[in-house]
């Protein structure tokens, strides 16, 4: 980007309907930590109406295959998915409360299942609004740790201490209670640098942490 106005370099025809969608697909791949065997895309009605003409279908599938929004092979993504043995489908879903360009992506393989919801909010930028039905708000502009932790005193301190010990600066942090009954909270930690695998393993070992997802930085190209 130049002066926030020229760029990004993307595959057309639309930064919201194509580039942002490739990025949402890539976010799914990163959180799933690989390629699923099956993936289903539920598109909000306005998005569904134009999805073929904008190549939204190809962009989403290409993203899940790991292609960036500047990769011209996005155009052949559907054929490439079939070749790689990944099955996919698109369905319409009316989400009147959500951003018009919202998509819910669910995918699985023999031992994993993941569902994320996100919106393409303009200029190729995205916002992930839920992960496995936990509400969140993640942009993918930073390497991000998304944790479900016990809603008890000192939980955040234990997590942050580990991040601090790895000498990585926290750029943004959001902690919110998601379930007062089960005493669970969701913690989103956006980092300045990529954490190494050890940090994620150490955080997973904490008793107060119930699950950890990692979203890589989805570079602006």
């Amino acid at each position: 980007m130049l002066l926030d106005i020229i760029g990004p370099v993307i595959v057309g025809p639309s930064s919201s309907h194509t580039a942002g969608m490739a990025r949402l697909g890539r976010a799914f791949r990163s959180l799933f930590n690989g390629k699923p065997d099956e993936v289903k895309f539920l598109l909000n009605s306005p998005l569904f109406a134009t999805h073929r003409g904008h190549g939204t279908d190809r962009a989403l599938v290409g993203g899940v295959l790991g292609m960036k929004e500047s990769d011209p092979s996005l155009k052949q993504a559907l054929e490439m998915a079939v070749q790689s043995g990944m099955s996919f489908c698109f369905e319409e879903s009316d989400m009147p409360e959500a951003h018009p360009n919202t998509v819910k992506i669910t995918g699985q393989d023999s031992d994993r299942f993941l569902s994320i919801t996100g919106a393409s909010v303009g200029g190729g930028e995205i916002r992930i609004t839920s992960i496995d039905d936990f509400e969140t708000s993640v942009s993918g502009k930073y390497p991000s740790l998304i944790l479900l932790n016990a809603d008890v005193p000192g939980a955040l301190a234990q997590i942050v201490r580990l991040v601090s010990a790895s000498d990585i600066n926290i750029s943004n942090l959001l902690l919110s209670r998601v379930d007062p009954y089960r005493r669970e909270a969701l913690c989103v930690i956006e980092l300045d640098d990529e954490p190494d695998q050890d940090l994620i393993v150490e955080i997973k070992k904490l008793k107060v942490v119930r699950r950890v997802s990692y979203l890589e930085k989805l570079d602006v190209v």
Partner: protein
Amino acid sequence: MMTFEELVNTSKASKTPLHEVISEWYMMNTGDDPKNALKTSLRLVEEMFNSFETRKSNPSKSLTGWVGENDQKVRNSRPFLLSQIVHSGIEVALSMAEHNASMGKIVACPTAGACGVVPGALISMHKNLGKSMEELSHSLLVAGAVGERIRRKASISGAVSGCQAEIGTATAMASAAIVYAVNPENYDALVSAPALALKSLLGLVCDPVGGFVEIPCVKRNAFGVSTAFTAAELALAGVESVIPFEEVAESLGRVGRRLPEELKETGKGGIAVTKTARDMLTKFLGVDRRR
């Protein structure tokens, strides 16, 4: 936050080339090294040239099949009426816009739908005026400052302000880029050209058939580049814009807010609801369902 006129005045008063003033201004806004702005600009110019070359060797149709052959028609014809520089400009603009519609790789400038206008001006000046890549990268920085000011004063999104914000902004950007390449020290022309360009496109609605970035978007890129050359020609001849650029940009925002929703990228107004457009869409969606 400096206005575009203030940036030009600073350049004049300090005898510093405008693109350097802009890269310093960029540094103050982002904390980034000003050299990075110049490097990024050159890389983006190269990306534009790459897109154009790729398109020429890969002339595929759009996903709907509605557009994709206009650029070749212009490429294969000699100018009947226009000068060679404007003719090349519209050829490049159509090429970029059709490349975009067929899922080619482009530089959004300022948006994907308006991606042909600025490269149309730059690549044509390279071919016809012998401008170097480096000179063009300086022009692109000037274009960037124009676009950035419109973004701050109004919007660059068709869904928010109509096509005036997309093709309109791109045309204003291109007009300043042309003036800067022809005469970087014609300060009056630098501030007048984008104002003249933007005034001529104020009120332009966003009414794409089916909501796709194809009709009328592709051809509007060609009109954008020819308007940019006209605005630059007027400004270089000494024609001044009575209304200053920043005030025109404010008006764009005002007009955009008053435009009804059906004329802001919803595909529910303007040419999108003509009989022909509806028939085309029904046919496309019918074929689509059977796939």
